Every structure is written in structure tokens, then in C-alpha cells.
């Protein structure tokens, strides 16, 4: 079962899929863990240095996109700014209206609840 498939065919997670040498932006496809639980899916993405204001999570036409921006560090550090981006195709069993997101210690966590009809149910024998 391939419920949450990666949409973009980028080479390596954690790498720089679309490097633009002319700009000082580092493009990173964040590494993710996905865990299926009884009632939902949990996606955790490593986005170090990102504040919650600069995270955008969008769901459109069955696709969930994560975008996060990290500012270039102040002097003396020469850390370039980073654009994190990753897109997933989401199974229709997900109730998209109930997706929630939070950022804690540079980890973006998304909870994707399953629709009521997709949850496992106990059927009692009468």
C-alpha cells in the first residue's frame, strides 16, 4: 500500500535538487519520517532553522506541499538562506480539512487524520 507517495522525482532527500549557483539560496528537500497510526498519519520533516511563521503547508487537488524558508544567518556566519520544499500525493482516505501542522525544534510535524469511513471499526457479532 502506497498511501503517501512522494510526488516530485528529486534525486536525493536531504540533497539539493535544484541548485541555482547564481543565487545564495540553498534548496533542500527535507528528510521525512512517515508513520501510520490507527486514526491518522504522522509526517515529520527535518527543517532546522525554520520558524513557524515561514512554513507553508498547502493541500490542493490531492497533493500536500510543504514549503519552509530559512533566513540567511547574520554575520559573521555565511549560512545562505534555505528553501525547503517537498510535495506528497495523499491518499483519498485522508480528511484534508483536518490536517494540522506544528514546528518544534526544527521539526515540522503534520497530522493527517483518516476519514471516518477509513478508520478500522470493530463490528460486533449479534
Amino acid at each position, binding site marked *: 500500500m502506497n498511501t*503517501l507517495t512522494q510526488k516530485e522525482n528529486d534525486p536525493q532527500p536531504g540533497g539539493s535538487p535544484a541548485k541555482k549557483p547564481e543565487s545564495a539560496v540553498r534548496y533542500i528537500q527535507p*528528510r521525512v519520517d*512517515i*508513520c501510520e497510526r*490507527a486514526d491518522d498519519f504522522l509526517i515529520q520533516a527535518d527543517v532546522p*532553522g525554520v520558524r513557524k511563521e515561514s512554513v507553508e503547508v498547502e493541500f490542493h487537488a490531492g497533493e500536500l506541499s510543504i514549503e519552509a524558508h530559512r533566513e540567511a544567518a547574520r554575520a559573521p556566519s555565511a549560512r545562505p538562506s534555505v528553501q525547503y520544499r517537498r510535495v506528497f500525493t495523499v491518499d483519498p482516505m485522508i480528511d484534508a480539512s483536518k490536517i494540522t501542522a506544528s514546528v518544534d525544534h*526544527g521539526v515540522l510535524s503534520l497530522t493527517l487524520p483518516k476519514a471516518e469511513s477509513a478508520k478500522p471499526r470493530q463490528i460486533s457479532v449479534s
Partner: protein
Amino acid sequence: MNLIRFNTSRLPEPFDHLGSFQREINRLFDSSLGALRDFNSADEWTPRLDLSHDDEKVVVALDAPGLSKEAFDISLEDSTLTISGERKQPELAEGESVVRRERFSGRFTRSVTLPPGIEADQVSADYSGGVLTVSLPKPEVVKPRRISIQ
């Protein structure tokens, strides 16, 4: 010309060599891949580290999301700064299953050599947003001095 009795047992079997050769190859691969496996062990990871400096200080920034600040161990010894720590793999509860696991977990150690003379008690560290930043003020002798011409 001598006549020698044909004796099959004395003929070398063409694939005998190949058998032992194959064993040798297997042995070679078993050992070297074994070593590689150890090297690539899943409980080691190398967080990205940036090192920068200006006239006043050296700044080390380490991308290590998802830890608590207690999980870091920072030491300065003989001008070598060592940062180590551990990110625990989340444990799966009953009824949970892994769909994808790309994030690293386990122990890590990063070391950087710094200019000599940095005072350990002047070093400060901050962990926010998954980035550990260590600031080390440069000693007076290392700082550039403007020398006026008499």
C-alpha cells in the same frame, strides 16, 4: 615418443580453479562489505555544520533538529571543539507502522579545530529552532591589530 596411458584423474578439472576463485571473491566481498556496513551503520549520523568567524569570535552552527538541549555534549580541549549528542529513534506504539523513514537517528560527534587560546569559560551555546550555535570569542592575540605608522 612415449606412450602414456590416458588417465582422467590426472587432468585438471577446468572449473576447479573457478570454484576456489569464486570462494576467494566471496570472501573478499564478505569482509569488505562487512566493514562498509559497520561504517554505514544506521546509528551514526553526521549533522551539517557551518563554521564562520569575524574579528571577534568563531561561530559554529550545527543543524540538529528534534533534540532537547540536554541531549548535547559540548567540550573544548586543546583547541578542539567537540559536539556530540543523540537523537533517539521514535518508538512505535501498538498499531503504528512505518511508511517511510529517512531521518537520521542515533549518536553523532562532530569536531572542529579552532585557533589556539580560546578560553573555555567564554564559550556560549544556544539551541533554538533545531540549530545549535556555539560562539567562541577569539583571544586577544589572535584578533587583528591596527598598527599605526610612526
